[in-house]
């Protein structure tokens, strides 16, 4: 990875999106927005994957973040988007700090399964809670942004969108810096061989714990952004199929770059949405086939395409 190029690419993407915002049709803006939310979650998944563990229960944090934001609105009458995002991060960090104590001892499929069990327990709890609308969930809206009213205004839709873009950008930037830091670089070393990392004097469990918390916070952030963007939250966000989608996007994207998760999410959402439109009866099949094609022909994820192109050009 050439350091300057990835930074340039990130800034360029940010600039393009921001410049295009006023001209985007509503559906495209929404598609982009959902992709950015998913991408933020998958960014955390990518960190975990680089560390060699995969969570089949990240819906837990996605959902927790969304409900943290939603409950602020409904129960505490605080509906400032900035506060919502901070709350989501705080709640998910605290939860993952505790659960991480357990999960850091697990690897492979067992890590995946225990995290799945936790997310399904949250799902069950929420479905059980009639006061929060049970499986129907409830509507959420950010009424202000740093104190300025945005609810129900035309510029509000754009303002919250731009916040989403900027937050996603900052997350990507932060992740890029983290991956270059000492702890960040340990991630891949752990995936390759834990024992060696231990022999070198680093604590594998601590690194996994920290990375797990980072990925949880990103999932929470993604959940809160999604709650505000979509305007509705429900326990489905913690269901295993949601978590499965994150894993799928992670694999689809590949772990090559911090831009990959966002690109992967955008492509996934686009395919899904057009499959819904053009083959309403067989969209699952369309998704399944895409999945197989990517796994078979692009084992390194979509991002590996870029690598191939670059190598050809060189």
């Amino acid at each position, binding site marked *: 990875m050439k350091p300057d190029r990835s930074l340039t690419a990130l800034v360029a993407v940010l600039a393009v999106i921001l410049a295009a915002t006023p001209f985007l049709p509503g559906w495209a803006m929404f598609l982009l927005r959902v992709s950015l939310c998913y991408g933020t979650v998958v960014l955390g998944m990518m960190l975990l994957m680089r560390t060699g563990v995969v969570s089949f229960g990240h819906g837990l944090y996605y959902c927790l973040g969304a409900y943290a934001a939603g409950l602020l609105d409904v129960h505490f009458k605080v509906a400032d988007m900035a506060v919502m995002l901070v709350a989501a991060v705080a709640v998910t960090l605290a939860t993952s700090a505790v659960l991480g104590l357990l999960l850091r001892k697990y690897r492979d499929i067992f890590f*995946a399964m225990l995290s799945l*069990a936790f997310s399904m327990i949250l799902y*069950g709890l929420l479905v059980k809670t009639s006061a929060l609308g049970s499986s129907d969930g409830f509507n959420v809206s950010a009424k202000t942004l740093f104190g300025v009213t945005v609810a129900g205004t035309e510029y509000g839709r754009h303002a919250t969108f731009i916040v989403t873009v900027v937050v996603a950008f900052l997350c990507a930037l932060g992740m890029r810096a983290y991956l270059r830091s000492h702890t960040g670089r340990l991630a891949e070393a752990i995936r390759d*061989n834990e024992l060696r990392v231990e022999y070198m004097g680093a604590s594998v469990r601590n690194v996994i714990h920290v990375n797990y918390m980072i990925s949880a916070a990103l999932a929470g952030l993604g959940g809160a952004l999604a709650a505000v963007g979509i305007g509705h939250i429900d326990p489905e966000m913690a269901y295993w199929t949601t978590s499965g989608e994150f894993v799928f996007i992670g694999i689809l994207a590949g772990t090559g770059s911090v831009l990959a998760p966002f690109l992967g999410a955008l492509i996934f959402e686009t395919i899904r949405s057009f499959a819904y439109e053009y083959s309403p009866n067989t969209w*699952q099949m369309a998704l399944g086939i895409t*999945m*197989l094609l990517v796994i078979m022909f692009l084992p390194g994820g979509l991002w590996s395409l870029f690598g191939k192109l670059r190598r050809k050009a060189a």
Partner: protein
Amino acid sequence: MGQLLAVVIDGLIYSSWLFIIAVGLTLIYGVMKILNIAHGSLYALGAYSAASLAGYWLDQGYAPLGSYAAMVAAAVLVGLVAGPVIERGLLRFMYGKDEIVLVLVTYAVFLILEDMIKLVWGVDPLFLAQPYGMLGSFTVGNLTYPVYNLVLFGAAVGVGLLLTWVLTRTRKGKMLVAVIHDREMASAVGINVGMVYFVTFTVGAMLGAFGGALTAPMISVQPGIGAETIVLAFAVVVIGGLGSLPGAALAAVLVGLVRAAAVHYQPELDLFAIYFVMAAVLIMRPKGLFSLQEARKI
């Protein structure tokens, strides 16, 4: 009758069902290290085929008892067709990939099969109620149970014993166990690992379909049944220790009893029962109740 007795009977019946739907999954994982989500579709295919075949049998007015044979035949047929097609046509190109990637591969197969089932059978449910009530019922205290529940119990015990016997007492089974423990070593001593995988997946598929076929008479066979079942089967297999046959049996009994107890004493908790058991067991025994010792590789 005491409520406790009811809990035990209900729990054991439910356990039998759980074991039947989970046993194929654990077999495939044990040998091939593939957590096969498509197991849910195989279950659904088994249920649909059994409902069609046995339904046809009954409609023709043949001997009603023959419908049980038709159900089993349907399961065998599904296994013999779908197993080889999925394994030879797709999975064998994927061996050696990461376990998580393999989960996604089977998830993709699951999605494709879900829609295929819909294209073949439509969305209207199929019914095969007759075999459920045909054998009459028995009474324990003041509770009536269809004899079919005993069939379920017998089938679970039978499948469990048969598989155990094959694995521990026959040459082929021992070869399988060798592959489970060390694929490379087994290959080095001349075991045809590809063949073992092929046979295992086919048998696993057959067991998945068998679970569906046996369930068909008690449910409405309709889209989505696979998705509901696979999560349960997963939980049982994970609790028991992935790949362990006795583990799956014990886990099925545990989950069955816990759920029956929840329903009888605290119906509110039924929703979480299985995930609580799963989280609790994994926290205490990270690899499930029974797990194979793994060689430490540096």
